[in-house]
């Protein structure tokens, strides 16, 4: 069965790849992922803000104690190879590239315009095959209109796209008032792919200590539905490729995603829960499903249930929660 797909201009033997996650921290895991047949590997994001914070903290809590006291002019060995910039991350790209043959997609969350461009270039130089821009602005400022957020996202994509030669994907959150329009702008800016949708740490409340505790729960298949809708709406309307992330846990989930229009399927929670072999399992399930249902290839069903082609396009467009709620009541 031909499961191949093209994502960001990369030809992949099948659509299953790992999404941004800590899976890439360990080379042995990366190798196991390749052995399990993963089509591509996405790095976890490099957070520019975190790098800056770490540098700032080093100045405040390490450097500030130096040259103050006669007996201790410093407290740490003086190495030239402290890695407080992106070096650690870039080095990991190189190591992963040296370890596996599958494409490696870097991921970046910048905090400044210059940072986005600079780090993207460095990632390209380090050998990444593509980059995923993890743009996410939590718009808490009451003075910032939504349009400005959209422009910022597009602007970043354009700047990075202009600065690098390797493919650029943008990972979006679902929190735009007009997702379709944003994707159209990004598409026009030349991005090579869109990843739908980001999942975030959500603040939880510890009611005893009156503290806010951020949590990240693993995804569930139910989360796929939001993605299916937007894949279906966007599929066939943009030049760039589409990946789904969040909620794909089985071969059947993958079937739905591909039918909705996904070129690639990013998996994280399922691998975290069941290990790298889950990739192979899902790939096999997909293959079996296609065989059982007499498809010739995965490509044959890609986008078959998109807004353009599905028998009841209104179902994707309608805000149909009323009906569902009624059904549920019954």
């Amino acid at each position, binding site marked *: 069965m031909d499961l191949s797909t093209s994502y960001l201009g990369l030809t992949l033997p099948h659509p299953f790849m790992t999404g941004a996650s800590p899976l890439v*921290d*360990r*080379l042995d895991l990366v190798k196991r992922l390749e052995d399990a047949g993963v089509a591509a590997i996405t790095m976890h994001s490099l957070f520019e803000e975190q*790098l*800056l914070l*770490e*540098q*700032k*903290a*080093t*100045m*405040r*809590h*390490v*450097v*500030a*104690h*130096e*040259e*103050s*006291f*006669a*007996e*201790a*002019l*410093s*407290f*740490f*060995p*003086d*190495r*030239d*190879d*402290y*890695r*407080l*910039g992106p*070096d*650690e991350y870039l*080095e*990991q790209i190189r190591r992963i590239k040296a370890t596996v043959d599958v494409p490696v997609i870097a991921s970046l969350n910048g905090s400044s315009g210059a940072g986005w461009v600079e780090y993207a270039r460095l990632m390209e130089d380090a050998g990444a095959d593509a980059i995923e821009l993890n743009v996410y602005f939590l718009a808490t400022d009451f003075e910032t209109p939504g349009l400005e957020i959209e422009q910022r996202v597009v602007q970043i994509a354009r700047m990075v796209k202009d600065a690098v030669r390797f493919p650029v994907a943008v990972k979006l959150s679902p929190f735009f008032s007009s997702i379709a329009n944003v994707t159209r702008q990004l598409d026009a800016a030349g991005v090579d792919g869109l990843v739908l949708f980001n999942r975030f740490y959500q603040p939880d409340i510890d009611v005893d200590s*009156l*503290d806010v505790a951020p949590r990240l729960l693993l995804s569930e298949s139910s989360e796929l539905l939001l993605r299916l809708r937007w894949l279906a709406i966007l599929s066939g309307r943009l030049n760039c490729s589409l990946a789904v992330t969040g909620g794909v846990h089985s071969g059947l989930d993958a079937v739905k995603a591909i039918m909705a229009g996904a070129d690639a399927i990013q998996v994280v929670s399922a691998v975290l829960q069941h290990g790298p072999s889950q990739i192979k399992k899902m790939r096999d399930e997909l293959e079996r499903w296609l065989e059982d249902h007499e498809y010739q290839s995965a490509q044959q069903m890609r986008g078959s249930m998109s807004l353009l082609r599905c028998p009841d396009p209104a179902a994707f467009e309608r805000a149909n929660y009323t009906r569902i709620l009624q059904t549920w009541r019954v």
Partner: protein
Amino acid sequence: MDRSWITVDGNEATASTAHRANEVIAIYPITPSSNMGEFADEWSAKGHTNIWGTVPEVTEMQSEGGAIGAVHGALQAGSLATTFTASQGLLLMIPNMYKIAGELTPFCMHVAARTVATHALSIFGDHSDVMAVRQTGFGLLSSGSVQEAHDFALIGQAATLRSRVPMLHFFDGFRTSHEVAKIEQLSDDDIRALLPAEAIAAHRQRALTPDRPVLRGSAQNPDAFFQAREACNPFYLACPGIVQETMDQFAQRTGRKYHLFDYVGHPEAERVIVIMGSGGDTVVETVEWLAAKGEKVGVVRVRLYRPFSMEHFLKAVPPTVRAMAVLDRTKEPGAVADPMYLDVVTTLVEARAAGTSTFAQDPVVIAGRYGLSSKEFTPAMVVAVYEELGKASPQRRFTVGIHDDVTHMSLAYDAMLDIEPESVKRAVFFGLGADGTVGANKNTIKIIGEETDNFAQGYFVYDSKKSGAITISHLRFGPKPIRSAYLVKQANFVGCHQFVFLEKYDVLEYAAPGAVFLLNSPFDKDTVWNELPSEVQQEIIEKQLQFYVIDAYKVARDTGMGTRINTIMQTCYFAISGVLPREEAIAQIKQAIEKTYGKRGPEVVKRNFAAVDHTLAHLEKVTVPAAVSATRGRPPLVADAAPDFVKRVTAMMLANKGDLLPVSAFPIDGTWPTGTAQWEKRNIALEIPAWDPKICIQCNKCALVCPHAAIRAKVYPSDRLEGAPATFQAVDYKGNEYPGMKYTLQVAPEDCTGCTICVMMCPAKDKSNPKHKAIDMVPQPPLRESERENYAFFLALPEVDRTIVKPDVKHTQFLQPLFEYSGACSGCGETPYVKLMTQLFGDRLLIANATGCSSIYGGNLPTTPYTVDHCGRGPAWSNSLFEDNAEFGLGFRLAVDQHTEQAAELLKRLAGQVGEGLVEALLSADQATEQGIIAQRERVAALKAALHGVATPDARALEDLADYFVKKSVWIVGGDGWAYDIGYGGLDHVLSMGKDVNVLVLDTEVYSNTGGQQSKATPMGAAAKFAMAGKAVGKKDLGLMAMAYGNVYVANVAFGARDAQTVKAFLEAEAYPGPSIIIAYSHCIAHGYDMAMGIEQQKLAVESGYWPLFRYDPRAREAGASPLHLDAGAPKSEIGKFMRNETRFRVVEQQDPDRFRELLARAQADVRKRFALYEELARGSAPTTGSGSSN
């Protein structure tokens, strides 16, 4: 010749040569030599090779005794080996030095000469350490400047190889070891050329090897030893000649000429000074100045002090000399005179007797002592010595540099004399440690030294306090090599980087007339004048200073630099001083920034660049008014209520004027009053906690965790509130144990360091607005006055009745801390334990304190934190050494027990006179509780009253000893360097003895005081000096080792994780009638994170099982239970979570993620294994440990 000019300090200069000329380096950290070992370790870690192409093996040992032992072994096995040390460290090497010399072993070691502790410890420089080894058979080679230290490290190595006499190369601690200067660096070829290959081969041939077996270290008897000992004589006779030949070879190659005795001065000098070390440079400088005025003076600089060549000495001194002063930088009490004088006099006397004297007339020789503990030695003092030599009958024994009004030995000198030429540009900068002033100044020296033809020198004076430390940088630049081995007195440029310093110090005393004064000021050029104290205005006008201001903090804030103003002030310096063209200077500053901070991350560099670029727009010149307008002078440094001693002595030291105190001002034997820290109001906190009694749950946890005893709780009768200041806060006490009483939580506004640990600890949140807690940080200045008044009122409130205090966290915090406002780092993780110890037992406490952080914040002058209660009782504290602290404390116990026994004996003898009942009560008193102790004190008072009427010697003797009937608590306190490493042998022995002593190990898991070298307490995976790549072996389990005795009370505590367990452990350790040890987790700045998070990290340490909490109480065995009680459950989180929050672990991950992951996995496995073992022990199912009984 391929040589470069480098700008380095004396330690680096020395290590640079030694590292390239050796194969094995074994060291132990000790100030001021530590950096030499650190440089060597760093270079080896980076793969720098010696001249033979191998990377020298650098090993940190458990003590200097261990280091020299390892070196001795390496030498015996045929390696070229070296070590670096100082002071007590050198003394620990003495036994081995005899051996190494006796075996005629080529070996050159390097010593940053430092004061040996006598009446007090001093980290500073003099020759008392090297003079203490002059009898070992080592050659003593003395260098006097950074260049010389670099050169002599090679000359010493070459000479020892050729002569087989081991060499000790030394230079002055701090003055040379820490002075930064521009020097010409020896190339590898220079080193190769000087080191004799055949001698190296011969050394290797003598190596112990089973291929050519020999025996060394035999035991010899009266028939053989003496002759065999004399057999080495030819080598000592030849040695001076060989050293001179080596110096000549060196001169031929480098052009720098040295002699065993270097003479500088008038060829027909009549008055000559003989001197060793950096002081020689100062004398040379002065001689040249005097010679220019036609004076016939000269100086003999002693380079090779041992073997002392009389012949070479006599040749060096002009025959015209009539009077000679030998200056020793050491004190040998009781000797005829200090040692070098005796050598010189013997030389002259023997020459006369042998008829070889070259002198036209026998010179008068006088002995002078100078410069102990880095006391300044200036041209003015040199001039005073020459003047003395010009007198008809000069003082035969004298001191110079101090005012001795007791034995009147000191020479008077003109402190205002300044001989420095105009061509030398001088600058003095006052900064805060944290603002980076010293680092920037070091860069300035490098820039000027390496980018201009100028020679450059920098010397840095540091604070005795670890928090809010001030630094004073002394910089010189000039067209000729700089020989001024003393502080700048008359600067052309004075930079004051903190406005508040003007209120405390006479900053402008350093300013020469017409100098530039640059002030970091929140006030601009138009308003600053009115903010200056009158003394400052006066000096600006009188000295006609050019006055500039910049609001450096604003520039720093605007450019994201926080409080780092160093590069901003540096830019101003270059802009005003014109040392380099502006554009070039800025380019150079940026290059230096890149070099210094590049490894700290690109953002740091970027922000520094921005700061530099924004600086000049904010630099303003002030138009100085013609007259003083201020009505306000500099406030007094200590309150009027302070004791006389504090006002007379301490205040002078606080004002940086301690040098002016005469001998009579000081105690004769190092005994010092306690309770002086309370008079030093440092006001270093920008923010302090403010209390909201409405929210407070009165748990007192803030008081427990405060490292500086700067937030305190009291419960007291409500009627005591009468006369309270208007803003004083009090509420009803919430518990029922003090009915009707009031409760106050009060901050000491001027003593708080603003660390915020109390706020982090506070569990009481406003339910409607949880970001508001019972204590919040608020700006200090607006509250300073009112809270000062409130705090004074608070202190005057009565202390709680100790007899009714419950033994828990909350109630122990009502006890008065007898350790307060120490100079420890802001947020220190050690001091809360020390403070708790004084709260619980302070009134009966003797503390033996190992050298280290706790002895420095505990006993470093000017002010010390241990204090007394309202009865005048409090901890008696002493520091003996680093290595002997357990034994020292045991000695306290033995003495106290002896006193008590003798008192009991006397009491029994006097039973008839004082009454049987009282005798019985005194001897059988139960003092396990506060009530018991107080009752005993009352009995002692009754006894003393009864003895009053008894007129016998026994009665008098008992009067003196009666207080020993009251329990005395002996605590032995020190850090992990002491307990795990250098003092472990003694600690182990003391624990084994069953005596009632308590040991508190303040475990920061690293040598904190000397700057972060690894100890055996350093955990796996942590980077430390000498474990740059992350320590590959686990932390030693000191607790388990102590448990093995079976009769030792052992506790592992972490106050931030389980404060109740900490309090319990202290009480149990004290109550346990045998030896006790508490190993106390202490977060530390050497871990590399925000100390405000110290409590959270402690929690993580315990949760993850990294730091298990337990108490091992041998008494439990009597009840049939396991002595070991685990106070924390099975590890709940991964230790990676704990480790990744700290720089010491993070750097390992950043450098080598795979290695870190491996170490992390092993550390995690160790945690599990350790917990499993403890669990078994706690269940009592593991093999039982020893069952020795305690006394």
